[in-house]
């Protein structure tokens, strides 16, 4: 996969239009993991827009994001920074090959109220 394809792929997975961002920073304004993140939520959006994905793929922030969706909730433009972070994380995981979580390791009782995306991303994060 070329870099361009990868950029497109991340954009596609995230399902968000990064050009809609007006750079207000509200996402980072409320991010509970802000301090731990080397690249901030708003930067994920702008950097993806600029195609700077090498840094993103290297970033530690993707493992620090709680996927709490506060940024998605707050964004006045309907951009979803968490989805971008998730897409980057997803890409990184895919690049690592097959070491995903096994089905039998999934806890038998899962709280229905937990967002699906949070669960999925949690599996990815803690399964390295």
């Amino acid at each position, binding site marked *: 996969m070329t870099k361009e394809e990868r950029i497109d792929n991340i954009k596609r997975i995230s399902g968000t239009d990064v050009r809609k961002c*007006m750079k207000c920073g509200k996402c980072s304004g409320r991010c509970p993991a802000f301090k731990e993140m080397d690249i901030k939520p708003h930067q994920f959006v702008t950097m993806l827009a600029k195609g700077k994905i090498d840094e993103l793929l290297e970033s530690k922030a993707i493992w620090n994001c709680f996927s709490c969706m506060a940024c998605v909730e707050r964004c006045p433009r*309907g951009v979803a920074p968490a989805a971008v972070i998730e897409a980057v994380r997803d890409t990184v995981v895919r690049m690592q090959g097959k070491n995903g979580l096994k089905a039998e390791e999934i806890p038998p009782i899962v709280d229905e109220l937990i967002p699906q995306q949070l669960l999925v991303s949690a599996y990815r994060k803690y399964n390295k």
Partner: protein
Amino acid sequence: MQRIGVFICWCGSNIAATVDVKKVAETIKNEPGVVYSENYQYMCSENGQQLIKQAIKEHNLTGIVVGACSPRMHEATFRKAAEEAGLNPYMVEIANIREHCSWIHKDMDEATEKAVILVRTAIAKVKLNAPLQAGESPVIKRALVIGGGIAGIQAALDIADAGFEVDIVEKNATIGGRMAQLDKTFPTLDCSACILTPKMVDCAQHEKIDILSYSEVEEVKGFVGNFNVKIRRKARYVDETKCTGCKICMEKCPSKKGLNTFNMGLNPRPAIHIPFAQAIPNVAVIDPEQCIKLKTGKCGICQKFCGVGAIDYEQKDTFIDREYGAIVVATGFKPIALDNFNEYGYSDNKDVITSLELERLMNAAGPTDGVLLRPSDGKHPKVITFIQCVGSRDTSGCGKPYCSKICCMYTAKHAMLIREKYPDTEVHVFYIDVRTPGKNYDEFYRRAVEQYGVDYIKGMVGKVYNENGKLMVQGSNLIDNEQITIESDLVVLATAIEPEPSVRKVATLLTASIDTNNFLTESHAKLRPVESPTAGVYLAGVCQGPKDIPETVSQASACAAKVIGLLAKDKLKTNPCVAMADENMCNGCSQCANVCAYGAITYVEKEFRLGGGKTEVRRVASVNPAVCQGCGACTVTCPSGAMDLKGFSSKQIMSEVEAICKM
């Protein structure tokens, strides 16, 4: 018998280079009905027009076709020429052989052939043209201004100064509008009341202006020059003619716990009240929801104390009908509700306030007599944080997609005034962009930063929460790429503004169109910005789009100029290409009226003769030519074909179709 003249223009080489103009003129000579066909270099020139005029006279032409550029270019020119030669101007048709032919085709044979067809098509149409006369309708020399804010006041004053009668209909008990609530105005920082109240007084004293406060428009009939408006005068339970504004009733009223809406609900007010000291008219009004007498029948204290007997609990809404030639809509705005923005904690924290509330808190006539005290405990706030773009530029569905335009400037104003009055106060402003186009505007904003040391933070607030009595404002600082939390005493939200909701009803009454944000639509965004698409209806102020006071006032004056221009005429010439119903065929089914965007169609009962001396009364459509704009929507809706459009009749268009298909 038709005598058609055809004039083919070369347009220099614009047409002649690709269309064999001589051949076109020659071929067309053989068309039935054509008695004259000529070509010339520039038909639109003085000489060209002379040629046309001469031919009309010499050959007794009954209709002419000019094969030239787009009718959007010179139709008016040739119509005028025809009229000067004694031919009805609507007996002119243009065949567009430049934009639609010579300029887009390269092959001469092909272009020439097409030009012939286009000219034939125009001939086919002109043969069915009928001489049309522009109609006339009288103009009632009186204007209605809906809304008594600064926009309405300015428009009314300008119109009245030109010598025309104006009525201002204001739904509140006083005129003055939002501007009356403001403390100072940017960028000059003059006191809002100081510049507004004299204008309000001018209105009240102007012999040509009639202020109908506490009133609403109920019904609008008629059309440009001839509007018929029904106005509801709401019961204020106080006789306007008797009340002297002495305020004794306000003192004595036992029901004092109402929200003072003028002060944005920041302090209480009695059930009977005068909205504010400089109210015009300076007459009390009773809030029926709050008044003990009106709710329970017991009390009547104000009546007892009123020295002039102005109190009348029996008062009912009354209606008046007035006629107007023009209507100005100036219904203004309100800040949006913040229900969708829990993150700013507006409803949970008394000390999170909107900018308009801050205006009242800083106003000398406000609840705190102009001393900035925070609502929760009446203490001086030491740290104040402003948040901009609250609900503006929001496409997530929670707020408004547009920029509210005024917030950047008033936030700078607030920040500056606070720093000036209370230098020990720390002021922070979270902003996304600072937008300050306008004379002395950016200078003003920079002054706040450079002279008054206001802390502008590029970034947005994610949450405001209360921790141990402090308002914690957590947001991003994008320049430093950090997340910060500011411990504040007061948080001020630059809340987005939206059109006053009552504008929807007004727009419906006026058949004026409204956009998805409830702003009234102007006739043309650039060239007719103060006119609504409904003739005779003009737009001033924020009802048309966000704008500040100077812009509002300019627009109001522009409206006034338009209104004066209209009212100065005794009669209006109307577009003769309007719909017309053939009474003999009309079924009276009302389908046409359903699609008319202008309300131009009404129905009348008419008696028709049947055979054998019998008559029948039928309901038939009647088009008001002064209101009809000539779109033709009705003609297609009419199943019987009773409705037709002059100048673009069904027969004309069908004969054009025939001519085109005849190859």
